[in-house]
């Protein structure tokens, strides 16, 4: 009997996609809230023009989330933006899951090309520093140590921001 060759449609990694979507929401709101309260973040993004947009997305057809700079703050745009001035993309779901969970830091992810960018290279250096600040506020030091090259000092203000993010900041994005 002749073998029949049929097209194969691979399954969907539902659990990992769900986790990534949840982390995108948490991270996006953390960016929004932290940029309203942290002077250093505001100083870093001051060089970006108003209305500047960036998206983080999982290649080739995974979830994505957007941010827009407004009044020198970052506004979480969820999945409203399909294209942006600057894109950070994860090569695949597995890499995104590893970085989002967070088992791997952004520097290592860039080094291993699991995470890459499309757009202005100068924006990438600024974004990396902002991401380090957000992660250092979001996660306890023993986790951050594994993720970044140098842990930013947890000042009294940043400790307060952490409490705010954990209680209302992420929930309200304020």
């Amino acid at each position, binding site marked *: 009997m002749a073998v029949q060759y049929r097209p194969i449609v691979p399954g969907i990694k539902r659990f990992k996609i769900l986790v990534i979507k949840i982390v995108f929401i948490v991270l996006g709101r953390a960016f929004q809230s932290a940029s309203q309260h942290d002077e250093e973040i505001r100083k870093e993004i001051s060089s970006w023009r108003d209305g500047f947009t960036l998206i983080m997305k999982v290649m080739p057809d995974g979830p994505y989330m957007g941010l827009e700079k407004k009044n020198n703050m970052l506004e979480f745009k969820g999945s409203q933006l399909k294209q942006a001035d600057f894109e950070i993309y994860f090569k695949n779901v597995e890499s995104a899951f590893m970085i989002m969970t967070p088992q791997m830091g952004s*520097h*290592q992810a*860039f*080094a*291993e*090309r*699991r995470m*890459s*960018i*499309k*757009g*202005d*290279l*100068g924006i*990438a*250096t*600024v974004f*990396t520093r902002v991401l380090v600040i957000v992660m250092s506020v979001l996660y306890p030091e023993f986790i951050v140590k594994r993720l*970044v*090259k*140098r842990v930013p000092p947890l000042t009294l203000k940043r400790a307060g921001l952490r409490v705010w993010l954990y209680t209302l900041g992420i929930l309200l994005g304020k």
Partner: protein
Amino acid sequence: MLPSYYEFHNPVKIISGNKALDNLPSELEILGAKRPMVVTDKGVAGAGLVKIFIDSFGSSGMTIGAIFDDVPPDSSSEVVEKITSIFRQNQCDSLVALGGGSVIDTAKGVNILVTENSDDLLKFSGAEVLRKKMKPLVVIPTTSGTGSEVTVVAVISDVKRNIKMPFASTYLLPDIALLDPRMTLTLPPKMTAATAMDAMSHAVESYINLQKNPMSDAYAVAAIEIICENVLKAVSDGNNAQVRLAMANASTMAGIAFSNSMVGVVHALGHAAGGICHIPHGVAMNIFLPFGLEYNLPKCRENIGKLLLHIAGDEVYARTPESRRAEQTINYIVELRKALNELCGLPINLKQAGVTEDKLSEIAQAAINDPSIVMNPREMDVNDALAILKKAF
């Protein structure tokens, strides 16, 4: 130790050796090109290299579409647009870059515009913006330093907007890098030394930074060994074709290494100092290399120590205690710089290079925003950058 994951990419065909240039017409034919446009500069033309180039096409039946020999020392978008228009007018189908870093980057810029059928380079600036396979590009380096003949990057100034546009895409990789010793024989001693130290910094930084991998390491250490063996000879006896060819190979190998594993603080500081004080890139690399290594010691002492074997040889490596190898590596580089300084006057500090102390803060600020910093093992903030600059002053 192997990294948990890495990527390495180098599809550039390397053609190296005596009279390698004479293979160019047949190599172009293999690439499907019949009417190449040559991009070069006045220095290269004045040194008689364009004549050697034209001679290599003798009896090939091929027509050289046009020769543009007026690329300035800093590649600019205006020149790229001008060459693009000549390329179109003369119905050229491929590009040959005959020159150093500026000429090569200019040719890459022209290739973007002719491939994308556009007149606006800025639209394609940044990382991974390009999406089309480009026209055939052959690069014939006339300096041994930039490695641009095998890299995915180009930097072109936009004079009107007063910005430097970086381009990074695998599509920018040339098809062929052609290394002919005749092309570097006329390079003056000081420029030979500066470009060699540029190649050295590519190799050294690619070996110690976060993106290092076994493939880039192999190219990096091979480049370092060849440079250490030949650089002083190349500076003192420029007519030695064998030495020149060795240096050209080392530069290409270092280029392959850093194109796959990036560079670090030495380049970040060098780009910043170059942008603000107009120090030639190779001179800046020579100045910053030992200080950049010293800065990274706490994070990659072992890797810097391993370089001693390739810089100083097996005997020195064997008799140096493991705990002292990293410092010895730096000492050897310092000694090499001294020797080059005595031979041809290559500056070893910022003051000698004409930088004034009031510029250091501005350079430090620019350095921490340079993309080269991302793969450096140690996170450099503005205070760290300033401290390195003060030492290098």
